[in-house]
């Protein structure tokens, strides 16, 4: 098991390397850099620009720049933000924490709702319940995440109960810890709800589909024939047998939720990676963009690794192989 995980982790590192190289190459081929916009200004002399360019290291060839970045990453800086004049990591890490503060609760809540509901939906026998279910999930699935976020904002505005944006109230820092946590939770509520609604339906449909398939199998009929209670049949027998593809989906849903999170952060002005990424792409703040992408990749790899561990724990057939 340990060796298996070590191998998967090594694959992850290799993937990080690949992603970073790809990011450098993409930026190389994209037109312009951080200084392009200053060039337009007539007040700054070409000499100044050239000096700045040399100072930022933008005049170096690509492999040299990549090597510099690797060295900086080894120091934990992950390059330097041109726009903020600080190491990229000091910008990224607090933002990443804020993004996780949204994504992880949203992930857990989505799955905690989707699994029992999906299993029950698979067990429903009446036709109208079935139609209601697929109608409802299709509608939710068709709603773009932006629209859900905007609707959440609208609710906040109209009711005035919820904060319209941000992560904490202005005076939050002055309060004691308990009040601070409560304030934070109050601010998290709408963004997390928007993310749960955005991701829940897809997970729900997958759970229902794979459990339905298992319910058709002859071992489920055999178990029913042995007189097992219905609850036990659905959750004790069908769900474990259907878990395999769902666990793989769990790993993927980490990545999916992150991308939903970036969007919702921008719309609901949550100080996560989303707004920072948008801003630095527009400013061509090279290392911040690369750093943000690398962080997303790390989350994705971590999600898949977690999926692997869960698969190992759940499926005796995989346990035997590994």
């Amino acid at each position, binding site marked *: 098991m340990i060796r298996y995980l070590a191998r998967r982790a090594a694959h992850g590192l290799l993937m990080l390397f690949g992603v970073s190289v790809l990011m450098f190459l993409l930026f190389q081929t994209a037109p312009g850099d951080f200084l392009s916009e200053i060039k337009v200004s007539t007040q700054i002399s070409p000499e100044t620009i050239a000096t700045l360019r040399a100072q930022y290291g933008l005049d170096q060839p690509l492999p040299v720049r990549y090597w510099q970045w690797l060295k900086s990453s080894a120091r934990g800086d992950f390059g330097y933000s041109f726009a903020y004049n600080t190491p990229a990591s000091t910008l990224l890490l607090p933002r990443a924490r804020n993004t996780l503060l949204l994504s992880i609760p949203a992930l857990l809540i989505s799955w905690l709702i989707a699994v029992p509901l999906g299993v029950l939906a698979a067990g429903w026998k009446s036709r109208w319940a079935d139609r209601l279910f697929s109608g409802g999930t299709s509608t939710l699935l068709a709603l773009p995440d932006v629209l859900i976020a905007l609707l959440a904002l609208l609710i906040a505005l109209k009711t005035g109960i919820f904060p319209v944006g941000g992560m904490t109230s202005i005076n939050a820092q002055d309060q004691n810890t308990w009040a601070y946590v409560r304030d934070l939770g109050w601010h998290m509520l709408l963004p997390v709800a928007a993310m749960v609604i955005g991701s829940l339906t897809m997970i729900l449909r997958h759970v229902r589909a794979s459990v339905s398939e298992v319910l058709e199998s*002859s*071992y489920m009929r055999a178990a029913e024939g*042995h007189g097992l209670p219905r609850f*036990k049949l659905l959750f004790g027998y069908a769900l474990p047998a259907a878990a395999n593809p769902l666990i793989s989906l769990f790993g993927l849903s980490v990545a999916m939720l992150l991308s939903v999170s970036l969007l919702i952060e921008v719309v609901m002005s949550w100080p996560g990676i989303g707004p920072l990424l948008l801003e630095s792409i527009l400013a061509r703040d090279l290392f911040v963009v690369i750093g943000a992408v690398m962080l997303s990749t790390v989350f994705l790899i971590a999600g898949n690794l977690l999926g692997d561990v869960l698969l190992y724990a759940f499926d005796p057939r995989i346990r*035997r*192989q590994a």
Partner: protein
Amino acid sequence: MSSGDLGLPKPEPLLRVSALSVDYNAAAGNVVHALRNLDLEIASGESIGVLGESGSGKSSLALALLRLLPKNARLVSGSIAYRGRNVAELSPADLRAMRGAEVALISQEPALALNPVLSLGQQLADVLRAHGKLTRLEVNARCTEILRQVGFEDPERILRAYPHELSGGQRQRVAIAQALICGPKLLIADEPLSALDAATQADILDLLQRLKRDLGLAMLFITHNAGALEALADNIIVMRDGEAVARGSMDKLQATTDDYVQGILFPEKSLATHTVSSIESGAALLEVRGLSKRFVQKRMLSRKEFVVQSLDGIDLSLSAGSTVAVLGRSGSGKSTLARCVAGFETPDAGEILLEGNPIATAEKNERGARPPVQMIFQDAATSLNPRFTARQIVAEPLEIARWKTDADRTARTLKLMEEVGLDPDWAARLAGEFSGGQRHRLALARALAAEPRLLVMDEALSGLDMPLQAQMVRLLIDLQSRHGLTYLYISHDLNFISLFAQEVVVMDAGQIVERTTPEKLGQSVHPATRELVEAAERLHAPGVEAAV
């Protein structure tokens, strides 16, 4: 029925099925009548055999008794009464209490009857706990006891194991243990043998016989194989198209003259007139010399290699127009041999010569050349694309070989269909619309389309019920004499061997352990051969009487 004349009050039977009819709503609004007006009674401790071809409604009966019919099935009329209570009107709680504790089911395929991700101990214990409160120790003791009863010597290991770690026969034993753990009064066994190899079949049959005697079980034993019922059933019901066409003891049924009943009891009789012509050892069509093939499985993160299956120095020779049967239990390497001969696998060592020339392997096969070796697969019916018409299926090899014109191909297709006993008018039907037996014929027609010299049949008949097997064997014999075909017939049982093959080769663990003739099979002393012969005797397999 006979005790009624004595004037004694007839005791209420354990199970009484009266005038039961079940319909299935099939695709396109069609209705299939699975059961029609079926009457059935089982007294305590009595065992009833239900015998019929596939599609005769036997399995629907088993499911209907426990109210396990799929959603598209409908109880049209009739009633099922267990100890006088109507099963159709039981409350969900009463129904659950009846299932497993009173009436238990062994389903058709042991490989699929157990949940793959739960330990066997848990699956056994759950059945027990579903029908009563017991302490952990009691549950454990009962599980161990029942596993011993079905013939496991190390119950503790089985309790910890998962289904994929057991063989098919062991899984069937566990499934039987699961059915019996709550001490039911009635056991419904739905084709409990059909997915197992012959030796394992005989073991399971012995086990069921012993359990029936020891536990005083009433049993409803559903099968297409009359041989299995001889020792087990007190009374037999013969079914056809959802109806009971005959009933009575085995002796009584054997005496009837009904063609269907005779055909299902003695499938080999329809072949009895055929005598195997001995082939003078003429020129060898196929020559296999020193054939070896190893499959290794590498496991993740391990440098160790596991040999999964192997062939080890196989020598074999087939003369033109003959039939050689390769026998052995599952895992003996016979399918690998078939796949090598048909060119699907490239051997590691040795050579395969067809008329003195090395055969082309699949990758070397030139387009346009018509391969002289054709293969019919295990479960041939599923080797057809259900969305192709019969014409498309049979003509496909001709099209791949770009044989003549479209009109010629159609003409040949129709002729081939006629030759395998299918109505050429059905050429436009989709493969999915044919019955199992007809699809087998279609697969045969497809194999014959390219005019092969050698036909390799890998367990090609084992998925069929006995009467259908007999029909196919008759057809194969007929085609052989007409076209001078040569057959390499691979099988795990001895059914029809003596009526069919001139030579028998027995394989075990990748090697040929014995070469003999069907007539001398019975005198063999090699353990692998003895096992096959004894299994055939215990199962009363048709067509082996001459051999054993």
